[in-house]
């Protein structure tokens, strides 16, 4: 099976020419094209939807000669993540990914990738955790690793997926970082919808992304080192502190990467960590991650047309968490309403994970806003702009009263 004649011609152009071209494809296709541009050396695959589409496209790109890479089909997800960990240790640029419970099956290897400090890039096609069975999006799969040294980002368009993949390699492989990056993409809503996006020419990518260099940590017969020893209480605190330092440095490195990205490719994302939409004078700001941005922005436009002061803030990088930006944009707002496509049972106020993190950041705000939390869109249930308008109306009502009557609302749950 080969790509269509039209796409073949366009792929030839980006590999050989200096101009970007437009194609139509899914969010996972966009990531696959980024892997082609980044010249990934090793990928390991194990099928699970909704991440799986990326491996099909990568396989096609390899088969058709657009990408030279080892494509290793693993026995299961744990092997899959072990394979890239070891490949990364010997100096290969690697790609891996999974979804939902597949991601969780690999959790031991996933943690070792970050604690061993290998710059693996993974795509998490966000999917509800079993049981019960559901293919659709929930963010709890990726959030499982929020504390163990993975950089985590949520994208909301195919274009952003492609661009973020290139940025992810640059950030992960920076000698100051050397941590893996997990790119989260909402199952179905982005993994399985087709959009037009631009593929930049490989010649520009080479200017943006230097070759992967592990330096003195490369496992090789000529560089005799031992990795991952047993160290017990004598070393562990120091090694965790190293990771802490890398994560703290990540903000600077991410900023540098986005600045260079805008310079080289001409696409400027502004603030790399968050996207703000009409927040400047807003009384109510809704916060979310991933594709929920689309209906919420539409709701903002419709409510603004009626004169309501509402806005939206999308968290693009969840780790490192954009604490300063959250404080900067949300301090003084009347109501902050967080939409969580996840749950965190038994957490403070029984809210979602994003709600809890934002609430914690805003403790340092000069003017702490009132806070609400909508838990919804679980298991792949859609959140439409009408839903977003309903949520805004509840928040606006609270803003007028000056108090929050129900802090956490399971939005749309059938009683």
């Amino acid at each position, binding site marked *: 099976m080969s790509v269509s004649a039209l796409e073949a011609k366009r792929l030839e152009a980006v590999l050989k020419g200096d101009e970007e071209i437009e194609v139509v494809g899914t969010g996972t296709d966009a990531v696959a094209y980024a892997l082609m541009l980044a010249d990934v050396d090793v990928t390991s695959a194990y099928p699970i939807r909704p991440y799986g589409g990326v491996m099909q496209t990568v396989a096609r790109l390899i088969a058709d000669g657009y990408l030279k890479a080892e494509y290793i089909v693993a026995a299961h997800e744990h092997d899959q993540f072990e394979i890239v960990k070891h490949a990364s240790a010997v100096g290969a640029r690697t790609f891996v990914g999974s979804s939902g419970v597949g991601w969780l099956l690999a959790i031991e290897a996933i943690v070792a990738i970050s604690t061993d400090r290998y710059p693996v890039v993974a795509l998490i096609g966000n999917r509800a955790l079993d049981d019960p069975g559901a293919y659709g999006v929930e963010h709890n799969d990726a959030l499982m690793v929020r504390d163990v040294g993975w950089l985590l980002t949520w994208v909301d368009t195919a274009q952003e997926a492609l661009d973020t993949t290139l940025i992810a390699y640059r950030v992960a492989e920076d000698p100051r970082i050397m941590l893996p990056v997990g790119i989260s993409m909402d199952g179905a809503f982005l993994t399985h919808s087709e959009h037009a996006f631009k593929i930049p020419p490989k010649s520009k990518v080479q200017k943006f992304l230097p070759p992967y260099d592990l330096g003195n*940590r490369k496992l090789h017969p000529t560089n005799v*080192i031992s*990795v*991952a020893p047993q160290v017990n209480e004598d070393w562990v605190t120091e*090694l965790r502190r*190293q990771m802490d330092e890398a994560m703290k440095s990540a903000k600077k490195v991410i900023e540098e990467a986005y600045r260079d990205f805008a310079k080289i490719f001409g696409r400027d994302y502004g603030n790399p960590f968050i996207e703000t939409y009409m927040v400047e004078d807003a009384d109510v700001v809704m916060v979310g991650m991933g594709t929920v941005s689309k209906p919420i922005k539409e709701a903002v436009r419709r409510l603004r047309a009626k004169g309501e002061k509402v806005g939206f803030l999308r968290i693009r990088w969840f780790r490192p968490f954009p604490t300063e930006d959250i404080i900067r944009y949300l301090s003084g707002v009347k109501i902050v309403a967080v939409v969580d496509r996840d749950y965190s049972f038994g957490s403070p106020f029984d809210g979602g994970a994003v709600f809890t993190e934002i609430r914690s950041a805003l403790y340092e705000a000069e003017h702490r806003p009132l806070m609400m939390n909508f838990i919804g869109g679980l298991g792949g249930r859609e959140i439409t702009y009408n839903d977003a308008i309903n949520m805004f109306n509840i928040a606006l009502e609270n803003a007028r009263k000056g108090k929050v009557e129900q802090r956490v609302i399971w939005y749309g749950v059938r009683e």
Partner: protein
Amino acid sequence: MRCNYFATKMSVQVPSIYTIEIIYRGIHQRHLARNLARGITYAARMAGSVALSYQRYGDDPERDGSPAKYFVVIAKGASEEVLDAEAARVEPDYVDVTIVLDDSILKGIESWAWQGIQPIHLKIRPGGLLVVVSKRSTDELIKFIPAKDSPYTLVVVYGERSIGDFWTFPDDGTVERILGAIAKVLPNVLNLDDVKRYLESLDKPSERISRAFEAYQSLVKLREVKPGEGLPYKYESPHLPGWKDMMIGAAIPGLKPNQRNPYFTGGTAKHYRPVINFDKCIKCTLCWEYCPDSVFDVTPDGYFNPALAYCKGCGICAEVCPVSDTIIMVDEMEFEDGYGKFIDEYRAWKENRDAYRKWFESLLPKAQVISVRKR
């Protein structure tokens, strides 16, 4: 409640806490060490003291022969909370008594890779006790112990080395004898009545009590050791690197081919060592091939010389050697070496074959059969 709170606050006093360290061989003595630690703890509690015990977890006592540690902390006439600060330690800073269950551990302790070889009495307070289960005299044992800056008392509890395995505990009276010895040398911690009270609560009480009494009456010998008396070995605490000095992600410089790890020798795990009769060696390579720790260095003329600092004493080489009485396993206490310096058997043989032959023949009657298969 309020009243109780103040009562507690008002009665705060610093109690005197006794800390007992038990040093044993991993696996072979794990049940012995635990039974002794718990026995002391029960006996102390029955006597009205508070007490608890814990392992030095990082020593991995599940490792074959590795020197490992147990601790018992006792406070007399105090409330439970005075032990709170002792309850979550890796190890205590100092101990009042160190009990050594296998005299060959006197030759040093390697707790963990970068700790180096620690002297047996590292933790003993000035004036403390070093209690050793052995059939040797105090004067013989002092030849294996490094000098210490402060005085201490060396105590021998006469007895066979008690060796069990992962699952079994040889109930051979060692625990009772040590309890009797404690009653003799540390009556302020446990006196003979305390020991008796505890042993009466076990099975076969009269047999156990008579063993404790026997030790109390006739099996304990003491010797004061002056500062500076003993082997000239100076232990230096390891330098532990800061997070900025470490390689990223716990990577460490590896060993080059034919290089041995200078930081972790591991040879303190053995109570027997292989001695090679090079005159009979047929250079078949089996010892070299089967050694699980790769301790055999190949000599220029094709013999296999054990690097004893790294040998764990498993006896596999002696078992696979096809020539009788060519590799024999001999008790560590037959050799006055240790603390990083070991006899170089091949060199000794090369330098004087006759002397070596005589030495080997003198060791032959003392050779032990360690059947790996039986284990």
